[in-house]
C-alpha cells in the first residue's frame, strides 16, 4: 500500500492511493461474503456458491464495486496518516486508475484544514470600554420605576381628560346610522394617546369629562383588517364613565424605600448608576470581542476549500430544516411564507458558513500560536456551568461526560480564553 500527494490547490489535496493486490483480494472476499446471498447458480443453494464459481459466471468485476467500498476507508485513513493530511471534508473519488488482480490504484481529492496566515491581531483598538453613566441614563431608569409604581386615580368631578389619562368608556359604532359588528364595547379602558384605537378617536376624547356623552366622527384607515369598514366614515357614540389620571409617586426617599432595599433616593441612584455602568460595559466588551475577532479575521489570509463550506452549508440547512419540522413547518411552506427562494436561503447560509468557518479557523490558529491551554479546573468550571444551564445535577452531569465531550468543553474554554486574549491584547 502506498500513497503520494499529487498536488495541493486551494486547500484541496489530490493524492494517489495504491492498494496492494493482497489487500484488494481481501476486500473482494469481503464483498463476496456480503453479496453471496444474491447469486443463484445451478447446483448450489442460494448463498452457497463459491466465490470462484460466481466470478467465473459473472466476471471478476461483480465484486469490485463493493470491494472498493471496503478497501477505501482503510487505504484512505492510512494515506492521510502517511502524508500527514488534516482532512476536513469527505474525500471524493477523482478517478480509478487501475483495478484488478494486481491491486487498486485511485486518485482522490480531499479538502484539508486551510493554512491560515495570521495577520495583525493584537493591534486592534476596541475603543473605550469604560462607561460613565450620565444623569440622563439614571433618570430614564427612575422614570421607568415611577411608571411601574404609578396608580390610577379617578379624576375629580368635572376635570377634563388629557393625553395620558385612562378613560373608561362605553361605545357603539354606527355606519350610515346602522350599528356594525365589533363596534360595541362596555367599560373599556382606553389610554388616551396610546394609539390603540383608530386615528382620531382618542384625540376627540381629550377635553371630555366624566359623565359626558359624545359623538366621535372618524374615518377607518384604508388599510383596515375588516374590509367592509376600511376607508369608511363612521360615528361612535361614546359615554365616558370615568376618567382616571395616572398618579406618579413622588421622587423622594419614601419612593426609594418602596421600590428598593435602599433607604434614600441618593443610594438608589448610586446603585442604578453602578448597574447601568456594569450593563453598558458588559455590552461594550461583547461588542469589542466581536470586533476584535472580526479584525483578526480581516487581517488573516486563508483559502477555505469549497468542500468544507459545502459541508458546513449542508449541516446548517439540515439543522434549519429540523428546527422547522419541530414547529411543524415544511421547507416548502417556509419558502412560501417568507417569499424566499431556496437559492437565496442557500446563498445566505453559505455566506454565514464562510464567516463562521473563517472565524473558527482564525481563532484556532491564534490559540495554537499563543499556546493557550485549558486547565483541568477551567474545564470543570465550564462543565459545571453547562450543567447549571440545563438545570442538571452537577455531579450527575459530570459522571456522564465522556472523553469526547470533555475535549469539547476544553475546546470551548480555549475558545473563550482566546477571545479574552484578543481583547486583552488590544487595549494596550
Amino acid at each position: 500500500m502506498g500513497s503520494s500527494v499529487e498536488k495541493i490547490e486551494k486547500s484541496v489535496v489530490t493524492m494517489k492511493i495504491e492498494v496492494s493486490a493482497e489487500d484488494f483480494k481481501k476486500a473482494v472476499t469481503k464483498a463476496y461474503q456480503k453479496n453471496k446471498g444474491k447469486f443463484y447458480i445451478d447446483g448450489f443453494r442460494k448463498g452457497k456458491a463459491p466465490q470462484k464459481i460466481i466470478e467465473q459466471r459473472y466476471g471478476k468485476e461483480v465484486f469490485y464495486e463493493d470491494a472498493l467500498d471496503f478497501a477505501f476507508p482503510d487505504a484512505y485513513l492510512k494515506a492521510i496518516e502517511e502524508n500527514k493530511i488534516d482532512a476536513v471534508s469527505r474525500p471524493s473519488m477523482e478517478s480509478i486508475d487501475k483495478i484488478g488482480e494486481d491491486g487498486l490504484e485511485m486518485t482522490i481529492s480531499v479538502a484539508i484544514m486551510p493554512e491560515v496566515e495570521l495577520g495583525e491581531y493584537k493591534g486592534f483598538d476596541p475603543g473605550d470600554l469604560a462607561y460613565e453613566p450620565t444623569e440622563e441614563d439614571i433618570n430614564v431608569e427612575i422614570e421607568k420605576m415611577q411608571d411601574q409604581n404609578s396608580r390610577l386615580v379617578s379624576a375629580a368631578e368635572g376635570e377634563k381628560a388629557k393625553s395620558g389619562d385612562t378613560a373608561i368608556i362605553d361605545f357603539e359604532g354606527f355606519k350610515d346610522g346602522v350599528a356594525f359588528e365589533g363596534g360595541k364595547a362596555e367599560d373599556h379602558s382606553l389610554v388616551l394617546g396610546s394609539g390603540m384605537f383608530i386615528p382620531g378617536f382618542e384625540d376627540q376624547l381629550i377635553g371630555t369629562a366624566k359623565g359626558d356623552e359624545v359623538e366621535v366622527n372618524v374615518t377607518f384607515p384604508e388599510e383596515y383588517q375588516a374590509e367592509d369598514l376600511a376607508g369608511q366614515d363612521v360615528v361612535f357614540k361614546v359615554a365616558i364613565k370615568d376618567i382616571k389620571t395616572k398618579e406618579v409617586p413622588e421622587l423622594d426617599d419614601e419612593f426609594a424605600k418602596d421600590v428598593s432595599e435602599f433607604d434614600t433616593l441618593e443610594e438608589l441612584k448610586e446603585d442604578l448608576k453602578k448597574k447601568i455602568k456594569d450593563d453598558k460595559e458588559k455590552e461594550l466588551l461583547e461588542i469589542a470581542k466581536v470586533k476584535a475577532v472580526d479584525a483578526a479575521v480581516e487581517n488573516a489570509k486563508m483559502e477555505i476549500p469549497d468542500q468544507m463550506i459545502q459541508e458546513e452549508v449542508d449541516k446548517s440547512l439540515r439543522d434549519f430544516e429540523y428546527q422547522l419540522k419541530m414547529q411543524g413547518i415544511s421547507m416548502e411552506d417556509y419558502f412560501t411564507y417568507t417569499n424566499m427562494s431556496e437559492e437565496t436561503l442557500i446563498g445566505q447560509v453559505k455566506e454565514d458558513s464562510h464567516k463562521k468557518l473563517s472565524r473558527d479557523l482564525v481563532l484556532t490558529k491564534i490559540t495554537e500560536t499563543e499556546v493557550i491551554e485549558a486547565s483541568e479546573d477551567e474545564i470543570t468550571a465550564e462543565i459545571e456551568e453547562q450543567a447549571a444551564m440545563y438545570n442538571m445535577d452537577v455531579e450527575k452531569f459530570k459522571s456522564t461526560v465522556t472523553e469526547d465531550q470533555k475535549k469539547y468543553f476544553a475546546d470551548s474554554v480555549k475558545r473563550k480564553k482566546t477571545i479574552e486574549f484578543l481583547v486583552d491584547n488590544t487595549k494596550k
Partner: protein
Amino acid sequence: MLSPHDIIIKPIVTEKSMDDMSENKYTFKVKKDANKIQIKNAVENIFGVKVEKVFTMNMNGKVKRMGKYTGRRANWKKAIVKLTPDSKSIEFFEGI
C-alpha cells in the same frame, strides 16, 4: 478409437461435488458404458493427473411429464475420480 473427451462428458459442479474436492475427489458425467479403467485413463490423459481410484454409479433419468405425455430423461453414468495424494489438482472450471 474413442478419444478421452468422448468418455468424459462434462464435470459436475454442485455444492456436494465442491465439498468432495477437499478429499481430492472430482465428479464427472461420463459415457454411459464406459468402465472404470477407461475413465481413469481418460482423466489422466486430459488433466495430466494421477488417479488412485474411480467410483461409478448409474443415474436414472428423471421422469418428466408435459401435460398428458410422460417422458423420460436419458440415464447416465456419474464417476467420482479420486486422485492420488501426490497428484496435482484439477482446475476444470474453465469454460463451463
